[in-house]
């Protein structure tokens, strides 16, 4: 079954390219690690998932690229085409001539509705090319401006138009050091809107991935491309075919269906995180040996100590937090250790302020949003929803 990917904004498009590249290399690699029969079975089950494979042509990624400025999209398209191994569809992208200033509300209320028809048409065309649709995979950043706003709008539209299809949103948590308050507002709005219209939210933190690159992969100058490659590797591990329980040479067909059914059936718990090991560069892999039991034990340790990296696990004794859900090898991401309301943390950043100041601070940046139709009530709604989510997780 096939997955249609929607790449939104600069972040989404760059990551999307790395994801497709990784998936393609994995499906078509000729490493002699398994028997020929296993390789063929694997390759056969990878077919049609992420690429539209014609008989004598270059495989075409099942993706729609959306951005408000043409620069990143053009880069992505040309990088793919230059590789010669796979490419994006010739008309599978949508962009405008000029950017539109990092503004979530603008993206959500203006760009979205204005270009709704074109974008949904593109997605419809991709869907029609699939023999069977497993679902949608939407890549976007959380705190960006237009990318996140449009992303929230598009996801909502997908919910309306393809109510029965599964949707997973991949969202990038911004660097902690970028303390622009607008980022926080954007994140709140994105999260709350996505929580309503998507089935699962897979969160990746730039900080964590950066640390993995620095400490474990020994990359000196970490570029966005390195970070995205690590991210893509994690995603690829999640989406590539897995064996059926019954026997070998039988792969499961519905990747999103399996993931969703086992991880996010409960409507209140939609947040997901990924842990993967081993976290090392391809070159070092050849010099290490692993056992399945050892890897699992390590993973469990990471899970218990909420670590995202293989090393430096902090074994402090803490009062028991939440228990683990009954199923699932991948942990739910307890992303926030809030002990105060979200509103407090987001706006006041934890400082203790008088209530009058609170009002002033709140309205400080609000005009950017109200200018395009996002009112104070929307913010309050978003706060409430997220508070509820946090409370549910807290009570697990």
């Amino acid at each position, binding site marked *: *079954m096939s997955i249609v990917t929607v790449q939104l904004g600069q972040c989404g498009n760059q990551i999307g390219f790395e994801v497709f590249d990784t998936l393609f290399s994995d499906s078509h690699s000729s490493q002699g690690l398994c028997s020929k029969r296993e390789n063929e079975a694997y390759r056969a089950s990878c077919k049609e998932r992420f690429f539209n494979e014609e*008989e*004598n042509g270059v495989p075409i990624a099942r993706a729609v690229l959306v951005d408000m400025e043409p620069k990143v999209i053009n880069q992505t398209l040309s990088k793919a085409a230059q590789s010669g191994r796979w490419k994006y569809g010739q008309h599978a992208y949508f962009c405008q001539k000029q950017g539109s200033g990092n503004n979530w509300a603008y993206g959500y209320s203006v760009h979205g509705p204005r270009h709704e028809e074109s974008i949904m048409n593109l997605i419809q065309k991709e869907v029609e090319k699939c*023999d*069977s*649709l*497993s*679902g949608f995979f939407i890549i976007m950043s959380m705190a960006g401006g237009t990318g996140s706003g449009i992303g929230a709008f598009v996801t909502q539209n997908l919910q309306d138009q393809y109510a*029965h*299809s*599964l949707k997973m949103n991949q969202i990038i948590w911004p660097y902690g050091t970028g303390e622009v308050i607008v980022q926080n507002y954007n994140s709140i709005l994105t999260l709350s809107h996505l929580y309503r219209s998507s089935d699962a939210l897979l969160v990746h933190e730039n900080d964590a991935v950066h640390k993995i690159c620095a400490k474990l992969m020994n990359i000196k100058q970490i570029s966005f491309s390195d970070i995205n490659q690590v991210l893509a590797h994690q995603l690829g591990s999640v989406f590539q075919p897995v064996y059926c*329980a*019954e*026997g070998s040479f039988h792969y499961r067909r*519905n990747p999103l*269906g399996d993931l*969703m*059914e*086992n991880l*996010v*059936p*409960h*409507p*209140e718990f939609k947040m997901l995180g990924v842990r993967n090991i081993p976290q090392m560069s391809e070159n070092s892999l050849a010099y290490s040996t692993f056992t399945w039991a050892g890897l699992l034990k390590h993973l469990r340790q990471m899970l218990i100590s909420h670590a995202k990296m293989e090393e430096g696990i902090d074994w402090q004794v803490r009062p028991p937090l939440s228990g683990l859900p*009954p199923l699932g090898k991948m942990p739910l991401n307890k992303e926030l250790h809030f002990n105060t309301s979200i509103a407090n943390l987001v706006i006041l950043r934890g400082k203790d302020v008088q209530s009058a100041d609170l009002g002033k601070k709140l309205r400080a940046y609000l005009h950017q949003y109200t200018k395009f139709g996002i009112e104070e009530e929307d913010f309050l709604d978003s706060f409430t929803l997220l508070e509820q989510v946090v409370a549910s997780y807290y009570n697990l």
Partner: protein
Amino acid sequence: MGRRRRLVDPAAEAGAGALPKVIAALSRSLPAGPSPEIFRRAKFDRPEAAPALWQLLFRLLSPRSADGASASLALEAQVCLVKSALRSQGYPRLVLAQLPEDGSRGSRELLLALSWLLARGPLPEQLLAQAHVQLGDEIPVCECEALASPGPRVPHVEAEGPVDIRCVQWLMGRLRFRWRCLIASQQEQCTLLSKLLRRLERENTGLEAALEWRRGELVFWRWMDTVLGACPPEAPAAATQPTFLPRIAERGLGRLELAARELRALQEELCEATGRRRAAWEARVGGQGRGPQWSSARQALQKAVEQELAALRWAWEQDRGPARPHGPHRLVRCEDEAPGGQHLRAAEVIQALRSQEACLEAALRRLQGQCRQELARLAGALPGLIWILPPRC
């Protein structure tokens, strides 16, 4: 040209429109068949008809698997391939080999080559059989490859104590997701069914065209006579040229001899080695095989062998006359009770499979027993070590 002359039936239709109809049927039953107008022009050796006929011959002569990729080959490459393929099949007329490579001339020659191919064998039927749509309703008989697969696991539910409402919500969510996956797979089924129907339709058209062609092909052969008559006579010296056959190089022959000798030596070695091994095994076994602990094993073996013999005997009795069918069979629903021939009834197949299953299960149990005994022996040999054998299942 040694063309087979078919018996002309004077009572066969000779209507004015019969020839174009027959040629149209022919081109429908061939892949990439050109229009009847091309055929007519080819009789008069018109150059514009040549490329279409080159391409048709290319499709007929190129290997089956290169269907999609080779369609994009340039005309020159196709021309070369057609020429060499016809030569290796023994096509006698030299004029074809001398036609220009750019495929711009020679439509009459190509028409003669096409009819030569048609006369040699049932070409449209062969092509249609190759392109037959696989419907998944074929079942192989007597090919023992079935693996026992366990059924789907039944989820086991515990009901102890008060149930958390979140658990119920969780289960409801799973149900909803499964339902959505079901919808997706039903949509997939619909798409695939429609694809299948379209391919079947295409196959049906081809089959109908082949039938129509067979009914009217006399008209075509009579017309081909006139085409041959329109050709200039061939130079007599050319007729003595032997058919071109691929030659094995001298060096290759020597190597072949060497390989054959080596194989024969290997075979003798293997015979010797098996003979030695058999003798050694018999010597070992001759000493054993007596005693109480072996009698049960022997009984089990005997029972298994008897079962297999019974199955074989039953199989023989079922089917004295023609050879027992072996190979893939198609599932077809049949109202009438048409007996024997090449048909097998489903009940017979099921019985055959069941007896095979029984034999295999007996063999499995026997092998498991042997393994257990071996493990017990090993356990006895290492005192102080506790071995926990797997449970009998």
